[in-house]
């Protein structure tokens, strides 16, 4: 077998050194009732590289890929062009096949990347400090709510109806067996400000509120000024948690930090990482300096070595499970290291100039398409202030429309009925995302297909 270097003579020589008669002797502790005599039944035997490639390619070929058709699907995962350099760098064995940098003297590559990543993320989100990444945006948001509870010693979180419903579902799962109180709202497709009313959120804040969680741009693409909400939170001693699912937006819109956020979490997939059917992705987490010791997740910090040279180490690990065990800030024991590297390489290639250009391009293209689709009879553009994603209200239920568009080889967005099942007021909503990858021909195809399906 190509991955196993030992030869049969090697094995015999090694057993002789060990003093064991055969390999079974090394498994003597396994109870007799659980010993298997041979390969497990019902599974195939070993296969050549060529055969594996053939079988898996057959499965891959059954999927309709984003790059093959006009593609406008978003809602938490976005198709952006990733420069070839990014994949080249992350496939270097020194990055790909390294472990968590617990021996910093021989892991400065990974550590310096994490230090650079943390700095890039903090600046992008407008915050003081970011961690070395989390699993994804949804788990990062849940960790933020727990952090707010530790900081404020209050247990009530108010969650905006504009937050990605799957993120809210994750929070509800992980607070099911705790005494946290999670206040959620059902969003509405109010023209001009779909989601929920910030004034209503503000009215709900009281002395027991640990945090308000709001997404910007929200799940409907709506961009809001969160400054009044931040002020209201701070006046009540609560934290403002801002969720970002499309980080490219921050090249065009005011950062959460500028609007007064205390914790910013997000999904970083848009920069450097492909769609990958939902994972692996990249959870972003940033906060203010004064709250850093309540932050979950790995952190990389600068220090010096015995010769006084600058170097980097994992730090503040007394917050973490391998030291604190049941008293840790989180049970998390991993980050999305390679995804963070991909993000950092792409962000370095873009720089501020490139990021602003990319964001402006996304916005302009989305405005162009939104204005075209809004002309289709019966179609209403619900989101008027948006970045690269907007919600249309169709004259009919959107879920079957999406399927009919797919039959016409157009992936035309996400129906609100899929992500908010059972909410009748939302079922005609269609969320459309437009990135730099969509061409004029894609716009034409989408417009024609939607016209046809709605006719």
């Amino acid at each position: 077998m190509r991955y196993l270097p030992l030869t049969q003579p090697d094995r015999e020589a090694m057993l002789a050194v060990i003093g064991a008669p055969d390999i079974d002797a090394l498994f003597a502790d396994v109870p007799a009732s659980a010993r298997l005599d041979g390969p497990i039944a019902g599974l195939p035997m070993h296969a050549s590289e060529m055969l594996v490639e053939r079988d898996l390619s057959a499965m891959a070929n059954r999927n309709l890929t984003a790059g093959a058709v006009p593609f406008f699907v978003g809602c938490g995962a976005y198709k952006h062009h990733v420069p070839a350099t990014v994949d080249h760098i992350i496939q270097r064995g020194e990055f790909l096949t390294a472990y968590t940098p617990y021996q910093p003297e021989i892991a400065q590559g990974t550590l310096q990347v994490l230090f650079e990543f943390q700095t890039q993320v903090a600046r992008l989100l407008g915050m003081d400090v970011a961690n070395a990444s989390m699993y994804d945006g949804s788990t990062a948001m849940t960790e933020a709510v727990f952090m707010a509870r530790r900081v404020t010693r209050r247990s009530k979180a108010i969650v905006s109806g504009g937050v990605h419903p799957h993120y809210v579902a994750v929070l509800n799962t992980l607070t099911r067996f705790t005494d946290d109180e999670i206040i959620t709202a059902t969003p509405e497709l109010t023209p001009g400000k779909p989601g929920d009313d910030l004034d209503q959120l503000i009215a709900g804040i009281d002395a027991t509120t640990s945090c308000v969680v709001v997404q910007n741009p929200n799940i409907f693409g709506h961009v809001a000024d969160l400054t009044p909400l931040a002020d209201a939170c701070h006046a009540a001693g609560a934290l403002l948690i801002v969720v970002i699912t499309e980080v490219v937006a921050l090249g065009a819109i005011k950062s959460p930090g500028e609007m007064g956020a205390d914790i910013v979490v997000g999904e970083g997939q848009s920069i450097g990482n492909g769609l990958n059917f939902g994972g692996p992705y990249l959870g972003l987490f940033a906060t203010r300096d004064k709250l850093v010791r309540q932050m979950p997740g790995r952190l990389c910090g600068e220090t010096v070595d015995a010769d006084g040279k600058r170097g980097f180490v994992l730090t503040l690990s007394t917050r973490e499970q391998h030291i604190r065990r049941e008293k840790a800030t989180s049970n998390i024991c991993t980050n999305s290291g390679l995804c963070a590297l991909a993000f950092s390489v792409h962000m370095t290639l873009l720089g501020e100039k490139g990021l602003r250009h990319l964001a402006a391009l996304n916005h302009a293209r989305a405005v162009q398409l939104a204005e075209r689709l809004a002309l289709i009879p019966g179609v209403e553009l619900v989101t008027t202030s948006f970045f690269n994603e907007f919600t249309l209200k169709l004259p009919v239920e959107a879920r079957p429309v999406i399927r009919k568009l797919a039959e016409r080889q157009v992936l035309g967005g996400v129906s609100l009925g899929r992500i908010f099942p059972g909410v009748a007021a939302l079922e005609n909503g269609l969320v459309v995302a437009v990135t730099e990858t969509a061409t004029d021909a894609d716009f034409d195809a989408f417009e024609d297909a939607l016209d046809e399906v709605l006719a």
Partner: protein
Amino acid sequence: MSMNTVGRVTRLSGAPATELPGGITFTGNRALMLEEPLIFERGAVDRCGVDLPEVPAVASRLGTLGRTAPIDLPGLSEPEAVRHYTRLSRQNYAIDLGIFPLGSCTMKHNPRLNEKMARLPGFADIHPLQPQSSVQGALQLIDVLATWLMRLTGMPAVAMSPKAGAHGELCGMLAIRAALEARGDARKVVLVPESAHGTNPATAAFCGYAVENIPANARGRVDVDALKARLGPDVAAVMITNPNTCGLFEPDMVEICAAVHAAGGFVYCDGANFNAIVGRVRPGDLGIDAMHINLHKTFSTPHGGGGPGSGPVVLSEALAPFAPLPFVRKSKDGFELVEEELAGPNSQSFGRMVAFHGQMGMFTRALAYMMSHGADGLRQVAEDAVLNANYILASLKDIYTAPFAASGPCMHEALFSDDFLHDTGLTTLDLAKAMIDEGFHPMTMYFPLVVHGAMLVEPTETESKASLDQLIGAMRSVAERMLESPDDFRTSPHLAPRRRLDETAAARKPVLGYKPPLSDAA
């Protein structure tokens, strides 16, 4: 000199080692060892390594919410960026460079076929919210991988969405909590052996349980009598790692599971060490209720410098109804992704754990690996992993303290301690750093906590005998020289890109992002 929280020395002074005439180079480089500044020191905000189309002129929809203040993100041209990251990469040790014998971490060869398969556009370029009719091949892949995991473990169900091992633990413990609540049973305590990974007690606490430790016996196994004595109507679950973190199989696992079940509790098995038994033992045959499988350990998906991982959880019949959403099932028209709560007897799911469906990129890699090995090859994986570890144990136990060697063979990792260095004043940390100068990544240090000065060596099955012989030779030589001339080893490493780094200073005054020197900021 100072100590970190587990008592090991982290800061030492020492003269720089150099053989260079004059002692310095202009660049600070040492031939192929190249120093590399931060992107913030070499890039500029107006430099860009990406060419983008012109932005069409439209009326902005952002009003006053446009970002006008500087973001201060430096860019580099493509050649500069490639060089920056390539130079940084060369300061890393990696499995591609040599043996990475980190106990409990299973650093095995990462086949490049896996990378190629994960990058097929049909897997890499599909969106999690595309219509299900357009992703039937992806759902099929998840279903096939799930079948492999269930058959390899002998368990009837598997939850695929957890993103890493600790996330899988959370999944399993939430299922246990949900199952107990469904029968109106408000148990409050989870028992965890003191040798457990730190994630186990952290996870149990996250699920609202009080954690109590179970002691180990003199043979490095769970003290079964102590465990049984503690079982009762308040114990929700026992979390056991098997093979355990001392690298030993728990021979009483069947008896333990039966006792826990008889007391009305559940058994969570930490599957971090599944590599030792894959294809030879099905954990389901031992009686467990839930176990996570680190695809990045046993099934060779790359660790990537700390992630991403993937931690599917196999579940018993009793826990299966409580598995998280979403999940894939076969329907008459093909494969279906069930994202919503169902009516009827299956409506007990404890909910959603992640935004989408799990680590698809890792699923593809793991399945490519499983298909390559097959049922026969995976059995050989466990056998060679265990053989390699026992070969190391047998070859070093005369010089290294091996606390449990007398109790018989180990599984996939060999546990030593630094007792043999006691008179030298040297510790496990010093030995690990000396191994760095020898060109190896050190073994796991100071874990498990039940052995003072622990050194946990896990070679995995992808090392040749020659590779093991070189590691053994180096470990013997270092140990002998440490006993002879201990003072030569108090400030190792000398030859790595950095000398010992001051972790204490890093934690005392954290610098967690780049700040320009004051003169620049003015």
